[in-house]
């Protein structure tokens, strides 16, 4: 059953990424250079919709709180984020969209994947040294959510009800998605849209 779900949800995710233009490095580059924010609006909306449905479903009782998987907070999360951000902007790919871009026929994505496999291998080899720096030591409680989610195995950073907070933040993401201008410079982006 898990295998079938992996195949179905994975395929839907790959399909949705491609249909949002996320497999196209030009779309990614224009987004990160803050020239054309259509994909950013889609991502913000997706996070908001996902959040509202998940926490709403938990409150209604049909989403298993145990399915949540919260990653630990440590200084290396920020440092790793900086590195990923730089590589993402340079290449126009992130790990998921790079894999999908290969499947759409992009040859440069193959080089991204090759570099990525080497980078992951480099981390496997250097992991003990990285760990020794203390960069991986938990901060602010490690695996925490912003509010305290009822029934979850994770602590909350704040005592606020985490499910209500999740819905409020989800609505905020949706709001920002709608308010954010598609073209921050005010042009109509006709040329970009014509492609």
């Amino acid at each position: 059953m898990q295998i079938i779900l992996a195949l179905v949800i994975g395929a839907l995710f790959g399909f949705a990424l491609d249909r949002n233009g996320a497999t196209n490095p030009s779309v990614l580059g224009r987004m990160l250079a803050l020239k054309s924010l259509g994909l950013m609006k889609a991502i913000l909306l997706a996070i908001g919709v996902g959040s509202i449905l998940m926490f709403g479903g938990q409150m209604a009782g049909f989403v298993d709180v145990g399915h949540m998987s919260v990653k630990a907070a440590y200084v290396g999360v920020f440092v790793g984020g900086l590195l990923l951000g730089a590589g993402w902007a340079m290449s126009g790919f992130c790990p998921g969209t790079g894999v999908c871009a290969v499947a759409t026929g992009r040859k440069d994505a193959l080089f991204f994947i090759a570099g990525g496999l080497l980078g992951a291998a480099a981390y496997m080899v250097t992991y003990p040294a990285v760990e020794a720096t203390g960069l991986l030591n938990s901060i602010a409680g490690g695996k925490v959510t912003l509010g305290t989610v009822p029934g979850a195995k994770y602590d909350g950073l704040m005592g606020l009800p985490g499910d209500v907070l999740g819905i409020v933040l989800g609505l905020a993401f949706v709001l920002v998605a709608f308010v954010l201008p598609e073209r921050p410079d005010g042009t109509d982006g006709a040329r970009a849209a014509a492609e």
Partner: protein
Amino acid sequence: MQLNWKVGGLALGLVFFLAVLLVKPIGVSTQFVILDGIVADIVNPALVTETDGVYTSTNAYLAKSDGKYAKSVANPLNYSFLFVLAMMVGAFLSSRLRGGNGAQDNTIPMLWYVNFGDSKVKRYAVAFVGGFITLYGARLAGGCTSGHMMSGMMQTSLSGYIFSAGAFAAAVPVAMMMYRKEG
């Protein structure tokens, strides 16, 4: 064709919800490690070992968290690894249905071409270096754009916000410096 951001974002949000409803939140970058491990384990079968159903590895990273990654390396037909392979199938189908990217864009994407010209070597070299930095960073952070940014912030996880702050703090200035012409 590319979807309107409202339809596209809604579709993407529904997929993220479906994943957490039925199984667990979406993540991708760990599978680069798993593939590396699978290949390395073929070259050196002593890398991952199993004793009474408990997996471990001579590599400290694969052995961490009670051999969680070592187990996935030994059993490639697991949910998360197949998920990434299925993503490729989905993206492939979508791209075929919209008629593909075109031969030129498949070699050098438009935005790259207008800013840096037609050298394939240059584009491939930067994509390779970018991939290296991206995955090293993702593994240091413990997740990527999927696992930390989207799944993480969706679950109101603190780490997702920390990761996203770092990612955009680097990505935006780098992209603004590199892509001055829009194409």
